[in-house]
């Protein structure tokens, strides 16, 4: 049984279909990537999994249990954590306290949560910034803080929404290696949406391509970048050269 199963899921907003009969599954301990042009329904699908929206149709199963339509905090309790495309740090709180809020989920005491939070911040290279106010971090650091906060909840599945947007190439490579490490050490499964193909190719075991809300292709990265439907709708002919370089 796959960790996350999306089955025939649809969602419309005022008649506009954002996600249409999407079906795919993410296996345990893998990294899946959801790609597609702007407006393809990637973030909507994320919000459906995370409980922000309720699916109009279809079923979302996590560890075999239906989670579609549960409120966000219950989805988190089930073991799904997420980051946001537009980062949402607790701006006035210190970096450590941001992570403590996440770690309190699953830790009984504040002292225990602080230990857990420190360990996660170290893992994400934010150990030296622990006492800084979150608002003073750079964008790249705030992205890592979002991951730290989410990982601190001890999720089985981590949803990363456009982590790389706005980052410089060296920052992207650094974050890629950090994510790899976190995925390995914490035994987490990751589903990410991403425009930066450089990161997708480096991370993903499986790629799911969305177009107009529909899944038009899914498979291993090497196969996806040669798929004619994907090339035509999204990547374009030069995508291959882009990833090869």
């Amino acid at each position, binding site marked *: 049984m796959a960790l996350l199963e999306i089955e025939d899921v649809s969602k419309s907003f005022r008649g506009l279909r954002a996600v249409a009969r999407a079906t795919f599954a993410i296996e345990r301990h893998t990294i899946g990537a959801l790609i597609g042009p702007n407006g393809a329904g990637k973030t909507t699908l994320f919000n459906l999994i995370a409980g922000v929206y309720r699916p109009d149709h279809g079923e979302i199963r996590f560890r075999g249990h239906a989670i579609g339509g549960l409120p966000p*905090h219950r989805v988190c309790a089930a073991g799904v954590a997420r980051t*946001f495309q537009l980062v949402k740090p607790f701006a006035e709180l210190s970096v450590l306290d941001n992570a403590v809020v996440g770690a309190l989920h699953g830790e009984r005491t504040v002292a225990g949560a602080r230990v857990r939070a420190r360990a996660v911040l170290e893992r994400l290279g934010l150990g030296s910034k622990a006492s800084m106010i979150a608002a003073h971090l750079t964008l790249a650091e705030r992205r890592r803080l979002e991951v730290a906060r989410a990982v601190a909840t001890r999720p089985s599945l981590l949803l990363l929404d456009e982590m790389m947007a706005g980052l410089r190439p060296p920052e992207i490579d650094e974050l890629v290696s950090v994510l790899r490490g976190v995925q390995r050490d914490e035994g987490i499964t990751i589903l990410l949406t991403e425009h930066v193909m450089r990161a997708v190719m480096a991370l993903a075991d499986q790629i799911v391509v969305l177009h107009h809300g529909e899944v038009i292709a899914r498979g291993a990265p090497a196969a996806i970048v040669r798929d004619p439907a994907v090339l035509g709708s999204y990547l374009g002919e030069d995508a291959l050269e882009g990833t090869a370089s």
Partner: protein
Amino acid sequence: MMIGKLIGLPGRRGRRALIAGAAVIALTLPFIASSYVLSVVTLALYLAYVGQAWNVMMGFAGQLSLGHSLYVGLGAYASAGLFFHTGIGPWAGVWLAIAICAGVGAFIGFLAFRLRVSGVQLSLLTVAFAELARIGFDHLEWLGGPGGLFLRVADRSRIDLLGFRGPPAMYYYAILALVGGALGLCTVLLRRRAGYYWRAIREDEVAAASLGIDVFRWKMRAVILSSAMTAIAGVFFAFYYNSLFPEQIFSFGRSIEIVLGPVVGGVGTLVGPIVGAGALVLLGDGTTEVLNRLGFDVPGVKQVVHGLLLLLVTIYMPHGLWPPLARALGFGPRKI
């Protein structure tokens, strides 16, 4: 710290001495101060306490209430009405007051948070309920209506702890204990799960929910605690002033008065409501007193001073008086 050393501000021992000195002055004030000064400080402490209660809802959990006079009034009328009609004293009445205020707070919170009312709309809703109470109590002849509810003025020479009647010093110690208790409670809460969750909700509800926080439940807890704390202030108010008028106690001005202390002192901080209330009352009443001594009788000068202070603080110290003061004194971030 660096600045503190440069200009010779207190270190660790100095801070301890400062706290100890403040405590000694606070505990011996009735013996060293005139009755006028004592009444002014009592008022400051009263505002510090209600400010602290309001701060739980706004400062910690980020839910702006501009109608907190509702809970002062309900708490006051609950305990005073019980005493007036049955002779049952405030020690029992305070529980009735807490129950009523917590219930009303829960009702307003439930309405607002279930219907996802927040921000300005939430503030207006709290104002509306306070106004509703003001008009409602005006028509409640059973509790005195617009003519007011009066309690027999206490025998000021005798201390009757059971009936909460006695000299001004007794009320002073009572409100001092309330301020100390509220400060202690808030200090403990901020360091526990509640403090982390409330501040997370204040900063970003969507992110808080994504980390497993039941936002609705924790906002409800903040409103209920805040209104229950404010209820006790209402009981104090009733038995200290002995007269209640709906027009006064539920008025919008009273709600604003509650908000001013924490805003001037520092919203969301532990000591801010106390510092803010102190600054407002001392500067406001101080100016009035000085002008009186000089032979000027200027009505409304207190409000002008409050307005000026608020203006200056908002412009030059947007986080309130306490954070920069605390840093200058060398207090660590967890004391702020």
